[in-house]
C-alpha cells in the first residue's frame, strides 16, 4: 500500500474548540424591490413627541378639580419631567408637608407660591422656614375619550 499520498492530506485538528457559524435557514424572496422603500421614513412616535427625556419622565394621574382652569381634569394622565428646572408659569407637581399637589408655580411679591386654576381653591403661600419642593414639571396631559 502506498503510504505517501500524491496530494496533501488535511487532517482534522483534535481537541480544538468548534467554530460556530451562523446558519442562514431563512428563505430569501426574489423579485423587484418596492420603489416605495426609497421613500420610507420613520413613523411618527407619540412616545418621542411627549417624552423627550425618558429617564426623568414619569406618568402621574390627576385627581380632583383644582386645575380644571388649566384643562387638567380628574383622571387625566399627566406627563411629568423631573429633570426640568421649574419656571414661574409652569404647572408643577410639588411636595408640601409630605403631600403631593399639582398647581401653577407662581411668584407673589418675589416669593414662590402655588396657584390653583380654580377660583374655589386657595393659593398655597409659604412662610419663612416652610419648604417647597418641586417634584417635577407637568409637560403635557393626555385625555382619552374612547379606548
Amino acid at each position, binding site marked *: 500500500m502506498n503510504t505517501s499520498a500524491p496530494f496533501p492530506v488535511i487532517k482534522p485538528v483534535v481537541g480544538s474548540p468548534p467554530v*460556530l457559524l451562523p446558519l442562514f435557514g431563512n428563505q430569501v424572496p426574489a423579485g423587484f424591490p418596492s420603489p416605495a422603500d426609497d421613500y420610507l421614513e420613520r413613523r411618527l412616535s407619540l412616545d418621542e413627541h411627549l417624552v423627550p427625556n425618558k429617564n426623568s419622565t414619569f406618568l402621574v394621574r390627576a385627581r380632583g378639580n383644582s386645575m380644571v382652569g388649566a384643562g387638567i381634569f380628574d383622571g387625566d394622565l399627566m406627563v411629568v419631567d423631573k429633570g426640568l428646572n421649574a419656571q414661574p408659569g409652569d404647572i408643577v407637581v410639588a411636595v408640601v408637608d409630605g403631600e403631593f399637589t399639582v398647581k401653577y408655580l407662581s411668584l407673589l411679591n418675589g416669593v414662590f407660591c402655588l396657584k390653583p386654576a380654580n377660583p374655589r381653591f386657595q393659593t398655597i403661600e409659604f412662610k419663612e422656614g416652610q419648604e417647597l419642593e418641586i417634584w417635577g414639571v407637568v409637560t403635557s396631559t393626555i385625555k382619552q375619550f374612547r379606548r
Partner: protein
Amino acid sequence: MPIALVDCNNFYVSCERVFNPKLEGKPVVVLSNNDGCAVARSNEVKALGVKMGEPWFKMEKLAKQHGIIALSSNYTLYGDMSARVMSILSEFSDQQEVYSVDECFLGLNGFAPEDLVEHGQKILRAVRKQTGIPVCVGIADTKTLSKLANHCAKKGFAGSDGVCDFGRLSEVQLSKLFSSIPVGEIWGVGRQIGSKLAVMGIETVEALRRADPEYIRQQFSVVVERTVKELNGIPCIELEEAGTPRQQIMVSRSFGQPVTTIEDLSESVAYFATTAATKLRKDGSVASSLCVFVRTNPFKEKEAQYQRSVVVPLSQPSADTAKIVSAALAGLKQVFRAGFRYKKSGVLLLGLQGKDTVQADLFDQPMDQAKSEARMKIMDQINQKMGKGAITIAATGVKQRWAMRRERKSPNYTSDWHELLEVD
C-alpha cells in the same frame, strides 16, 4: 485612568421615598421576599442599630418603639429606577460597568485631575435631579480604591457633598484616613479573610496596603494579592463593560408557604422557566441546558430535609419558552420526592450563546426555528403590552398558591397603568 464608583444611597428606601415623600426623615426598612429580613435600611434605621439581613420578627419591638416603617420589596419599581439611573450615568462616560442594581463604575478618561471632583458633583446632581435618587461618588485610580472612596464619601470621611476623590488627598492624609478604616470594609475582603488578616495583625486598610503582596499571596490567594496592589494604586481589575452577555440566568424564589405537591411545584418551576426564557430572549441568547433545583427550609430543623438538583440538556440550544418549560418539568420529575415541605425551587439556564451562532441540528428544521422565534416574539410583545403573564404557558398555573407574601408592597408606579402615582 481615574475610575468613579457611583453608588445609590440606601437604594430601595430611596426609590420608595421618591413616590412617597412622607417617608422622608422617617426610619424605613425594606424587607426581603416573603417579608423576611431587612434588605435596605434608611439612615434613621441604621442609627437604631438594625443590621442588614436582620429578620423582621427580631426588630418588631424596636419598630413599635421608634415607629419604624416596614415595606415589602417592590423589585419591579427598583428595577425601573435602576435602569433610569444607569442610563443617566452612561451619558457621563463611554466606559461603564454596571456592577449591581444600585452601583456602577465609570471610566473617567480625559479629565484634568483638578476637574474630577466637579465632574463627580455633576454626576451626583444629574441623578438626583432626574430621578430623585441620592448617590455618592468615589473617585480613585483603581476599582478597589474607588469603592473605598465611595465608602468615605458616604460616611463623610473625606470631602463633603457626597463626592470623594482620593487623588485630592496627600500621601499623609491618605495614610491617616486608611488607618481609621477596618480592613473588612475593603471590596473583596469578606468576614473570613478579614478575621484571618486580623489574626496576622492586619486590621486596617493601611496595614493591608503596606503588606507585602508576595506574602499575602502565599497566605491567601492571587485574588487578595491583587487587592493589595489595587490599594497601592496599581490597576489589576479591569472595567467589564456592558455588552458582555450573561453566562447563566437564574430565576428562583422562596415560597410564601411550604409546598408539598408536585402540581404546585410544577407551577412554580414552569413559572420560573418562563421568566428565565424571557430574560434569555431579551439578551438575544439561547441556552443549551438547564438546571432545576428544589429544597426544603433548612431553618426548620425539626422538619425532614431534602434538596436535589439535576441538569437537563436541551436537544438543540433554544430560547423557546415551551421547550425550556418542558425540559424544566422533566427535570423536576426526576428530583421530586413526596413527603417533604418544599420552601424553594429554581431554574438555572446554562451554556448560553448568541442565537446567531447556533449550529443546526440534523433533526431540527430551520423553518421550525424561525416559527418558534416568531411565536416567542409575539408572546413577548403581548406580555409587554398587557402586563407580565398576560400570555403564558398553561403549566405556570392560575392560582399560584406558592406565590410570595408581600403584604406591604408599594404600587408599581412606573410599570402598571392601574397603579400610577395620583396627585390632586
